[in-house]
C-alpha cells in the first residue's frame, strides 16, 4: 500500500473523530454559561442545577475533544512534513496563535470552573464559564483561519520553493473565513441544541420523572439554540455556496455532479454518477435551480467539471484535477438533508407549547432522541465535502496532496498508526458517548448537594 493513501485515511478518520466532539464543545459551552448567568442574575437554583447537569456532559465531551485535537496538531509534522515545509511559514502562525490565545484560556479556566465552585465568588466563577466558551470558539476561529488559507490562499508569495506570508492582515481577513467560521459556529449551537433537546425529551417522556419543570426549562432554551443554529447554518451555507461558485468552481461542480457547463444550470436532485466516463448515467433535475442557488436568478452559466479540468490543465499542467465527484455529491445532499430536517424539528420544538396536539405528542418527543445524531451527520459530511472537493489540492492551486506527504514515513508505519488510532480513538469516542448517555439520562443533583 501507498503511504500517501494511508496517511490520507488516517487524517480523515482522526479529523472526523475530532469533529464528532468539537461542535458540541462550541455550542454547549455557551449554553452552560447562559444557564450559569441566569443563576447568578436571578438566584434561581433550577439554573444552577441545569448548569451542573449539562456541565457534566460538557466536560466528558471536552476531555475527548482535547486529546483528539493534539493528534491533529502532531499530524501536520508526522504525516505531512512536505506540507509543513512548504506551508509552515503561513500555516504555523495561526496554529501557534490558536494555542496561545485559545488553548491556554479554555484549559486554564475549565480547571477553575470545575474545581472553583467553593473557592471563587459567584461572578468570577461565571466569568470562568464564559472564558471557556470564548476560548473554545476562538480556537475554532484560528484553526479555520488556517483552513481558509488552504481553501482560498491569500496574502502570500512563493519564495525559494515555499509559500511565505506577505500579509498577516490578509490571512485573518480571508473572505472565505466569515462563511466558514459562522457555519461552524452555528453548527455548534445546533449540535448543543439537539443534544439538550434529546436528553430533555428523554426525561420528559419518563412517567416517574420528578424534575419536569427543570427539563421543560432546558427544552425551551435548547429549542431556541437548535432553531437559531439550524437557520444560521443554512443561510451562511447558502452564502458560502455562492462565494465558492466564484473561488472554487471545481468544488461546486463536484458537489453538483455537473459535468458540462450549463446556462441556465439545472440542480441535480439525485444522480447515478459515472466518474470513469465523466458523465451521469441517470439524473433527476430541477431546471435552472442551480443558477438560482448561485446567482438568485434563473439564468447564469455554471461551469462543468470537464471544462474546469481543461482550464486547470492549462493553468497547472497535465494531471487530473477533478475531485471525487460521487463522494462530494452525496456528502452535500446528506448534509443539506440533515440540515433541513433539523430546521423542521427545531421549529416544531419551539412552537410545541403553543400547539395542543404537538404538545401532547409523545411521538414527537421520541423523534427528538434519534435526532441528536443529525448535527453529527451534517457536520461530518460537511467536512467530507469541503475537504474532498478540494482534491487533488491540499492548498488550493498551490500544493497537491501527493507533494505534502512525509517522504520518510513508510507504509507499514502509517498502517500501524492508522489501525492504532482508529481503534483507540474509536473506542474513546464510544466510551465518551456512553458516559454522556449515562450522564444525560441520570437524575440531576438536588441544588443543595450540588452546591
Amino acid at each position, binding site marked *: 500500500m501507498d503511504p500517501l493513501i494511508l496517511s490520507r485515511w488516517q487524517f480523515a478518520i482522526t479529523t472526523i473523530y475530532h469533529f464528532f466532539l468539537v461542535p458540541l464543545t462550541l455550542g454547549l459551552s455557551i449554553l452552560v454559561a447562559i444557564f450559569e448567568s441566569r443563576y447568578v442574575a436571578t438566584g434561581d437554583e433550577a439554573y444552577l442545577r441545569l448548569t451542573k447537569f449539562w456541565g457534566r456532559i460538557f466536560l466528558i465531551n471536552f476531555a475527548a475533544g482535547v486529546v483528539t485535537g493534539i*493528534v491533529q496538531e502532531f499530524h501536520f509534522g508526522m504525516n505531512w512534513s512536505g506540507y509543513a515545509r512548504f506551508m509552515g511559514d503561513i500555516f504555523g*502562525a495561526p496554529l501557534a496563535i490558536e494555542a*496561545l490565545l485559545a488553548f491556554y484560556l479554555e*484549559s486554564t479556566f475549565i480547571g477553575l470552573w470545575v474545581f472553583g*465552585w467553593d473557592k471563587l465568588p459567584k461572578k468570577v466563577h461565571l466569568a470562568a464559564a464564559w472564558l471557556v466558551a470564548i476560548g473554545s470558539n476562538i480556537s475554532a476561529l484560528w484553526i479555520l483561519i488556517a483552513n481558509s488559507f488552504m481553501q482560498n490562499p491569500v496574502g502570500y508569495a512563493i519564495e525559494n520553493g515555499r509559500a511565505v506570508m506577505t500579509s498577516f492582515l490578509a490571512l485573518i481577513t480571508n473572505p472565505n473565513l466569515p462563511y466558514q467560521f459562522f457555519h461552524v459556529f452555528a453548527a455548534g449551537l445546533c449540535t448543543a441544541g439537539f443534544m439538550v433537546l434529546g436528553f430533555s425529551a428523554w426525561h420528559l417522556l419518563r412517567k416517574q420523572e420528578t424534575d419536569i419543570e427543570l427539563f421543560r426549562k432546558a427544552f425551551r432554551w435548547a429549542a431556541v439554540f437548535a432553531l437559531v443554529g439550524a437557520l444560521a447554518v443554512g443561510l451562511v451555507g447558502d452564502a458560502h455556496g455562492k462565494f465558492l461558485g466564484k473561488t472554487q468552481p471545481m468544488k461546486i461542480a463536484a458537489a453538483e455532479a455537473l459535468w458540462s457547463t450549463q446556462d441556465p444550470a439545472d440542480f441535480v436532485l439525485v444522480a447515478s454518477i459515472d466518474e470513469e466516463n465523466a458523465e451521469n448515467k441517470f439524473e433527476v433535475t430541477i431546471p435552472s435551480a442551480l443558477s438560482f442557488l448561485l446567482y438568485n436568478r434563473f439564468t447564469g452559466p455554471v461551469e462543468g467539471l470537464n471544462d474546469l479540468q481543461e482550464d486547470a490543465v492549462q493553468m497547472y499542467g497535465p494531471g487530473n484535477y477533478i475531485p471525487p465527484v460521487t463522494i462530494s455529491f452525496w456528502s452535500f445532499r446528506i448534509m443539506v438533508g440533515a440540515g433541513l430536517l433539523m430546521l423542521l424539528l427545531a421549529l416544531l420544538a419551539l412552537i410545541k407549547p403553543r400547539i395542543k396536539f404537538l404538545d401532547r405528542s409523545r411521538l414527537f418527543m421520541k423523534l427528538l432522541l434519534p435526532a441528536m445524531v443529525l448535527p453529527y451527520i451534517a457536520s461530518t459530511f460537511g467536512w467530507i465535502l469541503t475537504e474532498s472537493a478540494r482534491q487533488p489540492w491540499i492548498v488550493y492551486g498551490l500544493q497537491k496532496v501527493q507533494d505534502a506527504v512525509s517522504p520518510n514515513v513508510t507504509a507499514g508505519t502509517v498502517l500501524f498508526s492508522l489501525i492504532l488510532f482508529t481503534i483507540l480513538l474509536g473506542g474513546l469516542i464510544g466510551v465518551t458517548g456512553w458516559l454522556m448517555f449515562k450522564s444525560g439520562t441520570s437524575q440531576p443533583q438536588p441544588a443543595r448537594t450540588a452546591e
Partner: protein
Amino acid sequence: MSLNTVWFILVTILFIGFFFLEGFDYGVGILLPILGKNDVERRTIINAIGPVWDGNEVWMVTAGGALFASFPNVYATLFSGFYLALVLMLVALITRGVSFEFRGKRPDKSWRSLWDWAIFTGSLLPALLWGVAVANLMRGFAIDQQMNYYGGLLPLLNPYALLGGLVFVALFTMHGANFLARKVSNSIAERAKKLAFSVWIAATALTVVFVVWTFFATDILTKPGLNGLIPAILAALALLTNGWLIRSGKSGWAFITGSLVIVFATLMVFVGLYPRILISTLEPSWSLTIVNAASSPYTLKVMSIVAAIFVPIVLIYQGWTYWVFRKRVESNPEKLTY
C-alpha cells in the same frame, strides 16, 4: 539580536515551562498508584493537579505550535523522523487526558482502577519518551541533505537515549513527590516526602552517569563558544541542594530547587545546541539551524508581536490559578471534587 535567536529563546522558554509544569504532573501520575492506598487518597492526589494539568499540557502544545510557526523545517524533520515514538506518546497522552475526566464518572472499583493505571502509564511513557527524544537531540541523528531522517525508531532507542529517558522519569518523579509534599493532606504528604529522597538518590545517580556520558558523546558541554557547561553546573548545584532540603524536611524549598534542576537542565540542552536545533550526525552542515530552518523574517516579526502581548497575559492568569488553588487538598470524601 536577530529574530531567529529571539524565537530560539522563546521556544526554549516554552520547553522549560513545559518540562517544569508537566514534569510534576507526570511525576504525580507516576506516583498515583504508589502513594495512593485507596480511592479517596488517589482522588486526593489527582485533585492536587486536577485544576491545572490541562493548562500545563498546553505548554507542550504551544511549544509544538511555536516550533511549527518559527522553525517549520524543524517541526517537519522532528515529527516525521520520530514518527513511531510520537505515536506511542500520543497514545499515552490520549489515555491519560481522558482518564482524569472519565475516572470519577462511574463508582465501580474496576472502572476506577482501569483509569488509575491509564494515568500511571500515560504519565510514565511520555516522561520516558521525552527523555529519549531530548537525548537524541543532544547527540544528533542521521538527518540527510534534504533535512529528512529515514532511520525509523530503533536507532533512536540507543543506550544513551534510553538513559536520558530514565533520567527524565527519575527527575519528574522526584519533582512530583516534592509537589505532592506541599499539595496534599499530611498523611500522604509524609509518604511523598520519604519517597522523594529515595527517588532523589536514584535521580542523582542516573544524572551523574548521563552527564559524564554527555561529556564524551556530545558537544553540548564542550562546544567552543556558547555551551551548556554553566547551566549544567547550576543544575548540579540545585540537585545537591535539593537532596539536602528534602532530607531536612523543607518541602517548599525542595520543590523550588527541584524545579531549578529542570529549568537549568533544559537550559543546558538548548544553550548547548544553539545555533543548531537538530544536529545531523551524517554531516554537520546538514544540521537544521536557527537560520536554515526558520520562517521568513515577516512571519517571525508578526509572531514576535503576538507573543509579546499574549505570553505575559497567559503567565498572569495561569499564575493566578495556582494562587486560587494554593491550599492543600484534604482527603475528605465529602469535599473532594470528582
